[in-house]
């Protein structure tokens, strides 16, 4: 059983940090984060061509993370693969010892750095969860038997601040029914919104990792210009505090805000664990963990 699953099931507040697979074959910088933090965090998350921008394969990066002494949480997107590729990549991940998965539809290709690429979406995230569950049960999506069923810990995304929320809640229920074992949210800055979302969670316990993010100067400038268009909101006072500051000062203030959020989430039991996004930088992760007392 994966450490992430064990920690979640033990109620021990796991910490997952998000790495940035490189745009290139040089993996030293990414693996340096793993070597520095392997003893302090539960797992390292590997996005799959995040924001539709081509990067080193998440499954390969995840295997390298495990070889470097960390546990991996590997993302798999429906955008870039048909069902054959999704299934064979899932089996490939299992054969490499990768158990933790985050199964997503994926940002659309025109938003990324290969806008003329063909978007696939042969499956959606709900169907991909069903596919992975089927593999665990020993058959592929065509109903054919497997030689050796994989063991996965299936994660999915839920959007607490979706507006309108009801269609998102229906999708959340479908993901649960399809076999999701834990959920990860996008970044949360406004805990009131997270508290309100929790009122909609089903009575059956659902394992929830809430993302806490350190904003960059470009994101702050975007928000200050009134051009923020994300699935999570930024409190106006936070944007006012950060706007116009030097990039490193923004990161330093972001680290403080992130550690406060992590502490509050843990104290109030607003989530079962946290998922940290801090530019894939060891120094920022370390400061958040220290300030949050983790």
């Amino acid at each position: 059983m994966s450490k992430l699953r064990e920690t979640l099931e033990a109620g021990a507040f796991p910490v997952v940090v998000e790495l940035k697979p490189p745009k290139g074959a040089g993996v030293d910088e990414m693996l340096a984060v793993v070597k520095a933090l392997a003893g302090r965090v539960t797992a390292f998350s590997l996005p799959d061509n995040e924001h539709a921008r081509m990067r080193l394969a998440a499954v390969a990066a995840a295997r390298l993370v495990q070889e470097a002494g960390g546990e991996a949480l590997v993302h798999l997107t429906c955008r870039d693969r048909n069902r054959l590729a999704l299934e064979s990549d899932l089996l490939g991940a299992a054969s490499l010892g990768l158990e933790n998965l985050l199964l997503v539809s994926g940002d659309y290709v025109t938003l990324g750095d290969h806008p003329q690429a063909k978007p696939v979406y042969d499956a959606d995230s709900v169907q991909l969860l069903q596919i992975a569950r089927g593999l665990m049960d020993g058959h592929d999506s065509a109903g054919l038997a497997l030689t050796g069923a994989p063991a996965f810990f299936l994660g999915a995304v839920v959007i607490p601040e979706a507006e309108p929320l009801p269609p998102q809640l229906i999708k959340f229920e479908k993901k649960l029914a399809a076999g999701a074992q834990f959920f990860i949210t996008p970044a949360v800055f406004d805990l009131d919104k997270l508290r309100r979302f929790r009122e909609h969670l089903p009575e059956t316990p659902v394992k929830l990792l809430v993302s806490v993010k350190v904003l960059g100067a470009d994101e702050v400038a975007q928000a200050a210009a009134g051009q923020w268009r994300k699935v999570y909101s930024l409190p106006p006072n936070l944007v006012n505090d950060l706007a116009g500051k030097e990039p490193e000062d923004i990161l330093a203030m972001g680290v403080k805000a992130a550690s406060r959020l992590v502490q509050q989430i843990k104290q109030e039991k607003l989530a079962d664990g946290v998922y940290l996004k801090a530019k894939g930088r060891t120094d920022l992760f370390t400061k958040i963990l220290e300030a949050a007392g983790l």
Partner: protein
Amino acid sequence: MIIAERKPFAEIKAMLAPYKKILIVGCGTCVAVCLAGGEKEVGLLASQLKLALGVEDKHLEIGEITVERQCDLEFLRPLCDFTADYEAIVSMACGAGVQFLNQLCSLHPVFPAVNTTFIGVNNEVGYYTEACRACHNCYLGITGGICPVTMCPKGLLNGPCGGMVNGRCEVDPEKECAWCRIYHRLELEGRLDNLREILPLHPHDRTTTPGTVIHPAYKRRYGLNE
């Protein structure tokens, strides 16, 4: 109907550069409605070519004709004799019409003058939007008459993606999220339960190209088992 856009003039002119006598064939149905390849557009293209080549002191003899439907043998067959005198044919029909014409007029090169874009609707004059991907497995009865395959850029079958912001689409914020539209329509109709069932993977084997449909009443005529 089929929506098309006329190709850039420079592209058409370059394709026709080797020829001295061409026939431009319009289509009187879809491409006429969307102002891309009907009788008027045939005349416009012919005039444009004559003017452009006249400036260059070149001569191009151009014949013009528009048939009711280039995708229909009934209307296309009479054209065959008419094309014999020309060196090349320009079709202003959709891709189906161009290929049908090409098949029938096997001695002449046939060039397309439009880019076929989608199956869509005529909202107002000059304003067309896509409405159907011809996916071979219509979901509209389940999804409140709003197509997730076409209206959601990702073609998701089980609800909105994570990129929807304030009910707007991740890909084009000018557009309402298809899944929000579906939700609101089904809510209005009291049919939200439709959304609780997980729709299975789409049967893409049916979309293998080129597709063929034989009406059940005509199976014997075409040598198929009834």
